[in-house]
């Protein structure tokens, strides 16, 4: 049987760039599942996916030419009913007829229910081509996209954009199917303007033929072409590219044959803030910015065309004219906005709704001022700059610049505040108060900035949770996950010892929401083990810097010899207390009565407990968590001895109660840094 390679090209109208990479992964996974389930995946099956805006491509191999034949035994009547006196009965003859074999071909098989007449049936495997032809339409339409459309009429297939052609080849043969009125075949289409629109391809020639028709199927190749093109454009000019990975990704999936060009703009626009110029270029025109040798923004830009060249410079001139118009607008906004100071815009915030149930931005600004002040006082910092920045932070929402270029919110406020003579502490706090906007983004660079940002985000979280706007699944319209993640990062990374839990109040849903964010942050971003994070969270949390110190200590102590065995013992204690229905946190009625302790391991454990308790309390006060945990771990021999030699469930109820009290003290006293019973020990993993 021969192994075959497979090519699928879904030819579409332009797919939004950002949707392509996840769609390709989805295509790969569902194809792999298909061929594995149907048993046609060859040894060392490799699946490669590629795409341009107009095509999703999957190449896979080796695939078997057909499924393996399937052999099975079909059971007929019991032997006793099939043969009488060695002669076949009508029952046996009927079964043989049904199976299309002679009676003599039937055999007797032993089954758990006794002996039965049976017949071997071979189901021939189906050709892979048929399997694919049947499965591909649903597989293609099943590719997940965030938003789909229909185009052939109501009730018709849905996809991200209309499907216009299909190439499906298994070896040399077309895999025939029809989807949305399009029949699969072996003809692809080249670049819209530079290539042919009907190109017969084979598996071997596919990429090259497309390349000759100005389509680079590989995203990597397009990326290289852009990067190398830019390098060539800038060589010898003294200019440097400002790298922008996200923009590069966009352009890679917005083009089939990318070619960068260098354009320029009037130097006089450099008097506008760089942030404005870069935003206009990046977000609105998808241009790269360029800087001079000193790192200053240069009056040039790089645009990426979806064509091979611009010999007459028409494309460059066109782009330059568009940018000129955009910058002219921006300059107009910049000048108009200066006519009214941020301070005078505060009352205008009453006209801007924050959220219907949460009032206007003026209400929000006042809440931010109050919360900012509270945070500053908690840290014994000067509250005045925080109050000032919080009051002005949202005023830029009323400026023309931010109405036009919403990405500049915060940044514009900061720039206007600087021009209007606000102190650096204040204008920088305004400028940076939306940070961090992603996991990679920096947190605000000043304490004032951090506090304004915290006030903004905590207000959003508390307000939204209070009125029931709680994120669920992928729905998070107010970006509350990002806000909470920002709070966590600021508190931990700026090392602000603020009582987060106290600040959150009694909202249980919000507290759990934060616990999820904390787990995510410490595990995925900081690389702590999940059980360490659970153990520390279970011991209680409020100040995140303290939480982090405890985690660090736990990570350090964990590999030491006594730690995990002690964790096992703590789990045992917890179980014993639970079974005895004994309080895990001892109250005043749970005093240990020394006179009731038995000499030997029990007294020794009590002695060790008291000694270690003194040390742990002192260490914990000084936040010397590693030393505290080490001290706790040193209890291991005493605990082991105790469990070895002492029966907790003593016949004398007083002695039993006393022992349970001892264990309960031990557990609660030493679970305040981390709850060891959350630790998954190596022993358990096995």
């Amino acid at each position, binding site marked *: 049987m021969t192994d075959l390679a497979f090519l699928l090209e879904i030819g579409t*109208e*332009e797919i*939004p*760039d950002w949707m392509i990479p996840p769609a390709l992964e989805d295509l790969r996974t569902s194809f792999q599942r298909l061929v594995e389930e149907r048993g046609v995946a060859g040894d060392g099956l490799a699946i490669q996916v590629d795409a341009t*805006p107009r095509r999703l491509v999957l190449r896979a191999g080796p695939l078997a030419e057909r499924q393996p034949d399937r052999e099975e035994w079909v059971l007929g009547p019991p032997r006793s009913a099939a043969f009488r006196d060695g002669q076949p009965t009508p029952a046996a003859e009927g079964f043989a007829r049904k199976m299309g074999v002679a009676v003599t071909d039937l055999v007797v098989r032993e089954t758990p229910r006794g002996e039965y007449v049976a017949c071997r049936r071979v189901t021939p495997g189906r050709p892979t081509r048929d399997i694919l032809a049947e499965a591909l339409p649903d597989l293609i339409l099943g590719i997940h996209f965030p*938003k789909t*459309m*229909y*185009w*052939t*009429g*109501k009730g018709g297939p849905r996809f991200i*954009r*209309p499907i*216009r052609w299909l190439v499906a080849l298994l070896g040399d043969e077309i895999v025939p199917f029809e989807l949305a009125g399009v029949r699969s075949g072996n003809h692809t289409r080249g670049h*819209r*303007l*530079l290539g042919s629109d009907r190109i017969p391809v084979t598996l071997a020639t596919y990429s090259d033929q497309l390349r000759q028709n100005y389509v680079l199927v590989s995203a990597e190749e397009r990326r290289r072409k852009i990067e190398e093109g830019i390098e060539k454009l800038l060589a010898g000019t003294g200019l440097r590219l400002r790298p922008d990975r996200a923009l590069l990704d966009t352009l890679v999936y*917005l*083009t089939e044959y990318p070619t960068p060009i260098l354009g320029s703009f009037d130097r006089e626009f450099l008097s506008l803030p760089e942030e404005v110029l870069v935003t206009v270029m990046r977000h609105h*025109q998808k*241009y790269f910015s360029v800087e001079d040798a000193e790192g200053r923004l240069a009056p040039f830009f790089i*645009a990426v*065309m*979806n*064509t091979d060249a*611009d*010999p*007459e410079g*028409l*494309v460059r*001139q*066109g*782009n330059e*004219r*568009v*940018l*000129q*118009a955009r910058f*002219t*607008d921006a300059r*107009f906004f910049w000048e108009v906005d200066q006519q009214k100071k941020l301070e005078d815009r505060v009352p205008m915030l009453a*006209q*801007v*709704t924050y959220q*219907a149930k949460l009032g206007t931005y003026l209400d929000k600004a006042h809440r931010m001022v109050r919360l900012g002040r509270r945070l500053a006082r908690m840290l014994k910092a000067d509250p005045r700059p925080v109050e000032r920045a919080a009051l002005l932070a949202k005023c830029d929402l009323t400026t023309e610049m931010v109405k036009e270029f919403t990405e500049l919110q915060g940044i514009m406020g900061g720039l206007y505040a600087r021009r209007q003579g606000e102190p650096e502490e204040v204008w920088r706090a305004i400028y940076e108060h939306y940070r961090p906007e992603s996991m990679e983004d920096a947190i605000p660079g000043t304490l004032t900035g951090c506090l304004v940002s915290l006030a903004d985000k905590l207000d959003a979280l508390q307000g939204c949770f209070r009125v029931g706007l709680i994120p669920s699944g992928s729905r998070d319209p107010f970006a509350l996950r990002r806000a909470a993640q920002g709070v966590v990062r600021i508190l931990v990374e700026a090392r602000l010892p603020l009582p987060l839990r106290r600040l959150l109040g009694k909202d249980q849903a919000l507290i759990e929401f934060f616990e999820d964010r904390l787990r995510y942050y410490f595990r995925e971003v900081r690389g702590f083990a999940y059980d360490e994070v659970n153990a520390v969270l279970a011991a209680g949390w409020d100040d995140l810097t303290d939480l982090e110190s405890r985690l660090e200590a736990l990570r350090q102590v964990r590999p030491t010899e006594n730690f995990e065995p002690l964790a096992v013992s703590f789990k045992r204690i917890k179980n014993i207390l639970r079974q005895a229905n004994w309080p895990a946190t001892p109250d005043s009625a749970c005093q240990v009565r020394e006179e009731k302790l038995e000499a030997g391991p029990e007294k020794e454990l009590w002695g060790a407990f008291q000694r270690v308790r003194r040390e742990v309390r002192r260490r914990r006060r000084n936040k010397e968590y590693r030393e505290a945990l080490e001290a706790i771990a040193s209890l291991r021999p005493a605990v082991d001895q105790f469990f070895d030699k002492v029966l907790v469930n003593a016949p004398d109820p007083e002695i039993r109660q006393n022992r349970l009290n001892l264990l309960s003290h031990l557990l609660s006293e030493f679970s305040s840094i981390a709850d060891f019973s959350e630790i998954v020990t190596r022993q358990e993993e096995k």
Partner: protein
Amino acid sequence: MYTFQDILMRLKQYWAERGCIVQEPYDVEVGAGTMCPETFLRVLGPQPYRVAYIQPSRRPADGRYGENPNRLYKHWQLQVILKPSPEDIQEQYLDSLRAIGIDLRKHDIKFEEDNWESPTLGAWGIGWQVMLDGLEITQFTYFQQCGGLDLDVVPVELTYGMERLAAFLQNKSSVYDIEWAPGITYGQVRRADELQFSVYNFELADVPTLWRLFELHEGECRRLLDAWPQYPDKRRFPLLAAYDQVLKCSHLFNLLDSRGALSVTERAAVIGRVRKLAVGVAEAWLEQLRLEEAA
């Protein structure tokens, strides 16, 4: 070089050759060509239709007193509706650019995601903005819903921004320098219009009067929609007249907005009121179409 009017005529000619009826602009103020009955109502129901028309579109808040080189209170759209959308619609569209003298081989064309939505009309679609050398020249949309109803047949809507296209073709950095007809500029034809309407829209329009007018038109539309269910001979019922009232409301809403008379909450509420009327007309219109069919 083609003048502004040459370009308009050539594009109309181009689409006429591809089976479009060439209509004239609708005679009620609209914010976009989509709002004209030739689009909004024609896309409903299963009947095929092809139409092209120029529609001067009024957006009071975009006025700049005739001073900004790129922003206009009223701009000219060429609106093309092909229902159902032909399979080679992108190629046909690109050919229309060739028909007005654009050598695509020398330019950069991109179709960039841009889904269109009109909350006031309960309408949305999927598509792109077509970028020519970094300039958005056309909104290209496959309609999915109109008046809150899933469409039976998917039409494509092409909306060309004519001033931008003309400025591009004539290499002008201000729309006012566009040559409208030989020796006559866009500015000569339109600047007074832009200035005076900016003054009215931003400064002199009387807000209580606008509110009164809005309520009168809304009331008239509602009166008609309320009469619709009992009206004996539905085929002659004036739904088109009711729809004119929707358009009046929509324009008055835009004027109120440009006068800064709407808070954000009010804005959403007024959009909801207009939308309700539009949806009411669309639903009744579909029913009327079915009765037409049956007759």
